């Protein structure tokens, strides 16, 4: 499938393939293929203020892509543009293209509801509904008409994928708010998974959690990536280094617009970054 495409690959893609080759078992080299999400010329405006400018990035399938950068550089804005949550801000305007499997989700006439089902999101602070654990996870599938035993299966499967099933299987009807912070966050992950998305966006999912809960979330991410594509925003560089396959570095321009300054394989970014600003940030010389 990729024989004739070899010549088209950039240096970056070759590097990525080299890294994947190192990660996977002998004999199986994945093709890079088409990116799961391709961002082209993305600009997000809040009124007259341009929050992120000219973003171009290809997010590959079944990998964890981390977006790092100092506070206020637009990481969250970029993430939220990917599932059109930026639409919720009054006066927000998005320009450019975001292609999910080749189809632009920013095009007029696109069903936003369906986009958000396919691209799920987990937020910085766990935000379970004040309902039972079951009703939280079942919320999405119920919208699609899933009922009865099928619904119960979906809920169980999602909770297992979120590594929470064993802990809550006996108290599914209890309020989700009675759980610990880390458990609540996993309920939110289960809730996002229950509608069978293809991509999961995570906006600093562990920043409000203690170190142990954080590690569990990171383990969970590595398990989930086998089934989903994950994009995670984090201000914690160690976390990015631990968990992600690729890292995108963002920074704020003097006019406070966020831009992407480097994107590459994580191991390489953290040992031999190409951009001096990246190196400054990673080594802590920045801010």
């Amino acid at each position, binding site marked *: 499938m990729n024989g004739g495409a070899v010549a088209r690959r950039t240096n970056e893609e070759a590097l990525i393939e080299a890294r994947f080759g190192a990660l996977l078992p002998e004999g199986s080299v994945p093709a890079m293929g088409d990116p799961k999400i391709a961002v082209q010329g993305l600009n997000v405006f809040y009124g007259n203020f341009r929050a992120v400018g000219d973003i171009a990035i290809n997010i590959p399938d079944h990998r964890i892509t981390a977006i790092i950068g100092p506070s206020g550089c637009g990481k969250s804005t970029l993430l939220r543009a990917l599932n059109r*949550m930026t639409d919720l801000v*009054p006066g927000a305007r998005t320009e450019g293209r975001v292609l999910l499997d080749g189809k632009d989700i920013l095009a007029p006439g696109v069903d936003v509801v369906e986009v958000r*089902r396919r691209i799920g999101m987990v937020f910085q602070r766990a*935000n379970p509904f004040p309902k039972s654990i079951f009703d939280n996870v079942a*919320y999405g599938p119920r919208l699609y008409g899933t009922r009865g035993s099928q619904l119960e299966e979906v809920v169980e499967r999602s909770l297992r994928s979120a590594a929470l099933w064993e802990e809550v299987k006996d108290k599914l009807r209890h309020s989700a708010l009675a759980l610990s912070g880390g458990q609540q966050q996993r309920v*939110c992950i289960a809730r996002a998974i*229950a*509608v069978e998305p293809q991509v999961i966006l995570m906006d600093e999912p562990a920043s409000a959690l203690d170190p142990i809960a954080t590690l569990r979330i990171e383990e969970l991410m590595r398990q989930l990536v086998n089934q989903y594509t994950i994009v995670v925003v984090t201000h914690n560089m160690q976390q990015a280094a631990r968990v992600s396959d690729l890292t995108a570095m963002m920074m704020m321009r003097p006019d406070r617009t966020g831009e992407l300054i480097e994107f590459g394989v994580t191991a390489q970014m953290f040992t031999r970054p190409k951009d001096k600003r990246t190196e400054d940030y990673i080594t802590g010389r920045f801010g």
Partner: protein
Amino acid sequence: MNGESAREAAHRPPWGGRTLFRIWRHGDLVSDVLVRLSSIAVVGLVGFIGYELWLHSAESRVAFGLQFLVTAQWDPSIKLVFGALPFIQGTLVTSLVALVIALPMGLGTAIFLAEMAPDWLRQPVGFLVEMLAAVPSVVYGLWGLFAFIPSFVRPLALGLNAGLGFLPVLAGPVFGPSRLAASLVLTIMILPTIAAVSRDVFSAIPQSQREAALAVGATHWEMISQVLVPYGLSGFLGAAVLALGRALGETMAVTMVIGNTLDLSPSLLHPGYTMASLIANEFTEATGNLYQSALIEIGLVLFFITLILNFLARLLVWRVSRRAAGETRA
């Protein structure tokens, strides 16, 4: 700085209350006492109202006891028997019908204002809804009597009677002033209350809940009806209770459109009487101490009911803001 403990400092008002008075060279203590006295006076006023009502209804209370609440007779001229039941019923019926209609309408209006309307529309429409609440009761009564009833209520009543007149609650004959008219006017009058309080409730719901629902692929309406409304339910109930309290005590508009007739039939299309309209209608004509004391006792009943409802309403609305605050803290 002035020898205050940390706890005292925490309780200070945002603007340093005592420092304000300290600026006045003299009378620092005097101002403090005055302020305290005023507050005590206000609190005492409530108790005093209850006390006076209790005192001046003594004759009736002694004469009839608790039977007063369940007697269906009101005979000021011959037998001197007074029972509040028809008026309690009239009040409850008109208020509850008004609430049943106004609640979904008010909620829908609040949803439109809080979750749907663009900024440029929200202000003017919100203003109009508030102005509805500002119109005096007499003006509602005047308009109700001469415009609303002939143009809307009476045709509606005729239609309902024609189609569903076999139901006792819609039995004829059809009058102009009626319980239905009172209920509909009350609906218009309490709707702003429900809309305003519900709108506040929606504002108190944290944005993270909306994001959570939408991020899973819910439609706008699904987010509102399945996440926001359950979240703020106790607040909406509080709005309903508050509105009910207002409806129960409404006097002028009701007395001008309800017909002020002691009618024991269950039909909405007949004229009726409420506690408030009874007092308005008969108080100045009340001859004899027993008669007047019976009317005052009705006032006492009204006082207690609205007291309880008000308390309940505040409690319910307070619960929503507590829940929202608790979650953002976590």
